[in-house]
């Protein structure tokens, strides 16, 4: 069974009907995994025996007629989602051997449904970044071009066909840009759709648990399992039910797609062309195109960074070397703190905590934080208003092609790459990243953004052109 060419639905059916056992499926996946991981640096840890044991248990349940909706399906999980069986590194060298007493709600749900976690995927320094370049274990290599970054390791795991889907966090756009860079599909769900309990996040306001997969159909099946209320994440109180199957691709004459003209001005011409083509293709298929105005993208991005850094300074204050992680040797309390925290937080995480502290300090609060919170509200209003004129809107996911591994860049360059993702995070609305085209043999993804809980429509529309993964070209 070629995982990339099989839908989750088909694979589960094959397992349930005994054409292949979960054990065989996972065994094959693990083999694949160790071969492909070698050069790409996708995984921080790989499950091995534990995964095989789980697969065995699923086969036993299967024999007893347990209809597990994800029976034996291999999944990769980003290493900021806690999982009790493998170490949870959080993107810190000090946590390489950390066994979390918590398993993330989303991982729990997948496991209950029969999915098997095959490994924990690489991430930036404390999950802060959209490139994996700040990862303590080095960046994940793009499966399309080995001299470039993958953006996100989960996307690389899916693009290479190691696993059928990946669970990834997304705050400012890590998951979406990864999907764009690796030519796969990534859904950042509506606020409150999927429980974030067990996700170690630097930014609680904007962090979401997303699904990366090869097709919209696969995402829909998984989203159904992940959706819904979880007492441990209060934000999920707004979501009491899942979605069931993707609807038919929406009737073109009933759907208006918003095209924020000014957004594309930020792009290099060859990238802009991809989106203009996509727009024209939508139009050819009969969708109405409405030019809309998103005038606060850049300011939204800046507001995002003020809020994200402030929250990081507070969220990461728990890393004090007392209850978990490593402790810095000293007989003086103050020094113990300073050493522990400098060891646990990498360079980027240190920068963000320190800048966040600066921004929130007395005297700066009004100028930066209060203003950022107001701009946040304005961005939300802007997106809401956009959906008066359209049903969905299209935006780039990444501002540039995936970064070269040896490229010199400043931290602000990297922040700026979240230009199209961070404002969507502020809006709280769902965003689906789908392949839109290619530039220089590299995939370019497009965000389709819809009003809250419009995932069904997004996934239906998104399934129009997927399956352009790097290895599908062979």
């Amino acid at each position, binding site marked *: 069974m070629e995982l990339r060419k099989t839908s989750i639905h088909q694979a589960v059916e094959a397992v349930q009907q005994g054409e292949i056992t979960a054990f065989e499926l996972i065994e094959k996946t693990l083999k694949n995994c160790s071969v492909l991981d070698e050069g790409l640096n996708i995984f921080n840890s790989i499950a091995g025996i534990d995964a095989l044991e789980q697969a065995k248990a699923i086969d036993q349940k299967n024999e007893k007629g347990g209809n597990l909706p994800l029976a034996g399906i291999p999944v990769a999980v980003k290493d*900021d*989602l*806690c999982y009790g069986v493998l170490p*949870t590194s*959080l993107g810190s060298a000090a946590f390489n051997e950390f066994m*979390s*007493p*918590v398993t*993330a709600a989303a991982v729990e749900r997948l496991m209950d449904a029969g999915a098997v976690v095959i490994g924990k995927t690489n991430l930036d320094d404390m999950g802060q970044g959209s490139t994996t370049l700040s990862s303590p274990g080095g960046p994940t290599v793009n499966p399309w071009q080995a001299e470039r970054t993958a953006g996100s390791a989960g996307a690389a795991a899916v693009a290479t066909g190691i696993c059928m889907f990946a669970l990834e966090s997304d705050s400012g756009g890590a998951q979406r840009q990864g999907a764009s860079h690796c030519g796969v599909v990534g859904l950042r769900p509506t606020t409150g759709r999927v429980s*974030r*309990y*067990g*996700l*170690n*996040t630097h930014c*609680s*306001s904007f962090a979401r648990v997303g699904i990366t997969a090869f097709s919209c159909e696969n995402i829909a099946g998984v989203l159904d399992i992940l959706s819904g209320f979880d*007492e*441990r*994440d*209060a*934000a999920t*109180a707004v979501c009491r039910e899942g979605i069931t199957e993707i609807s038919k691709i929406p009737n073109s004459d009933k759907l208006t797609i918003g095209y924020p003209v000014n957004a594309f001005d930020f792009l290099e011409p060859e990238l802009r062309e991809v989106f203009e083509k996509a727009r024209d293709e939508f139009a050819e298929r009969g969708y109405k195109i409405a030019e809309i105005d998103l005038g606060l993208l850049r300011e939204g991005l800046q507001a995002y960074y003020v809020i994200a850094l*402030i*929250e990081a*300074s*507070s969220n*990461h*204050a*728990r*890393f*004090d070397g*007392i*209850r*978990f992680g490593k402790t810095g040797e000293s*007989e003086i*309390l103050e020094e113990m*703190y300073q050493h522990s925290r400098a060891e646990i937080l990498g360079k980027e995480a240190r920068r963000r905590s320190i800048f966040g*502290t600066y921004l*929130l*300090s*007395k005297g700066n*609060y009004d100028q930066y*934080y209060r203003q950022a919170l107001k701009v946040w509200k304005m961005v939300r209003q802007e997106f809401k208003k956009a959906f008066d004129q359209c049903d969905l809107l299209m935006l780039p996911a990444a501002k540039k092609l995936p970064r070269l591994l040896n490229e010199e860049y400043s931290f602000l360059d990297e922040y700026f790459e979240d230009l199209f993702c961070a404002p969507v995070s502020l809006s709280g609305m769902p965003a689906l990243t789908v392949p839109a085209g290619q530039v220089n043999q590299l995939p370019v993804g497009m965000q389709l953004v819809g009003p809250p809980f419009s995932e069904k429509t997004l996934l239906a529309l998104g399934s129009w052109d997927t399956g352009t993964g790097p290895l599908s070209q062979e």
Partner: protein
Amino acid sequence: MNLGQGTCPRVPRVLAMKRVVGHESWDKGPVPVSQVSKDERKVIMKYEVVIGLEVHVELLTKCKLFCSCPNRFVSEPNLNTCPVCLGFPGTMPQLSREALNQALKASLALNCEVALYSYFDRKNYFYPDMPKGYQISQYYIPLGSRGHLEIDDDQGKLKKIGVGRVHMEEDAGKLIHETTGGIAIDSSMVDYNRAGVPLIEIVSEPDLRSSGEAKRYLEKLKSMMQYAGVSDCKMEEGSLRCDANVSLRMPEDEAYGVKTELKNMNSFRAVERSLDHEIKRQAELLDQGEKVITQTLRWDEDKQQTIVMRSKLEADDYRCFADPELVPIELTAQEVENARQNLPEMADERARRFVKDYGLPGYDAGVLTSSRCLADYFESCLQLFNKPKEVSNWVMGEFSARLNNAGLEADQASFTPEDMAELLKMIDKQEISGKIAKEVLEKAFQSGKKPRRVVEEEGLLQISDQSELEAIVDRVISENPDTVENYRGGKSKALGHLVGQVMKETRGKANPQLVNELLVKKIDG
């Protein structure tokens, strides 16, 4: 919400006796005078004392504020901990419904306006007892604000003390610094059992004008929280904690003077003493033309003095901001009103009812209702023996004295309301005298035996049998001819002596009235 429901709050008896009922029409106990000499008072009198209290009260709930760990005292360290209250990566707080209800009750009991929209903030600072590096608290919008309670001022006049705010927050853990031996001499030890326990902070306006007022405010607050069922308020165990801000100014001044903050006052007495100490210190400084500086001081109970913890050069910057992991609290005016209607009866109200329904003197009502526990005990007795004044005398008198000696609360005594009723019924039926009854109570209280059993085992039943008594009376008359003569000679006191002799012979069990009658009959007849 019923009166009898929930844990019975406990109040040390010593405090209860000194409580002053806040209602004009009642008899008042003496207003306690602080332990400052006359000369010292003269110095202080020059200045107006301004005190504000910040009181932390632990809420009675089964769980902690943001996780399901039990909220109860255990001696084993770090037993009541979980990934949430230890701040493990990936965990998020989940607000307790019961804690919110308790905080709402407290706000309403203190006559606060309740915020229909509020949320939690993070107060960011590092300390090993603070697992997340921040404390979740309500900084920007407290649940309750602009409330008040009433106390007696030093002249015995009723005075309103403003309650600026009532807000919810989580408690921190506990640090233990061992000096010798133990686990590690070069380490401090952290116990997170208390981390995340639900608290409310009650901040008074700077309306208090003496240490006595401060103490009465605190007592009143404690009683109200106990009556509302919000907290057991055990100051010695830390479920009621008090910090004070103190400053002095000239009476004609409008601006407040420089204030100091007093911490670590672990008993009501410590509050009063440390305030007196600090007021005196500030007055002396000002008298010498020196300045009071902004400081945080710690009360040392052993040395009876304050110790400087730190001098604040600039105000702390806690970088407060809304906790993005919690959701806001929205209440409707109707919900608040319902909660107000369902508030349990408060001490003052109950005392008024005792006066009205049971015809008790105001003083009795005040003492009995000083602790919800004692008042509950009194009413339970009354259900079984409906003579309010008699029950009141025994509950306030002998029973309370025994409690006090044993350091117990009314509901902890093995001498139950049933036992009390049985005892009072025996007196009522003249089966035992009042004097014997005291002895029975003492023995029953100590041994846990039923009063009737004590009476039977000790043979304490009153002798009302005329023939049995006549023999003794005859003997006493024949053995005391002089006294009998004196009585005959008109010295009526002599009869008392004879009665006493009979009582002595019967070990107090003789019915005194009958003995009297018999003596008079025998001598005169």
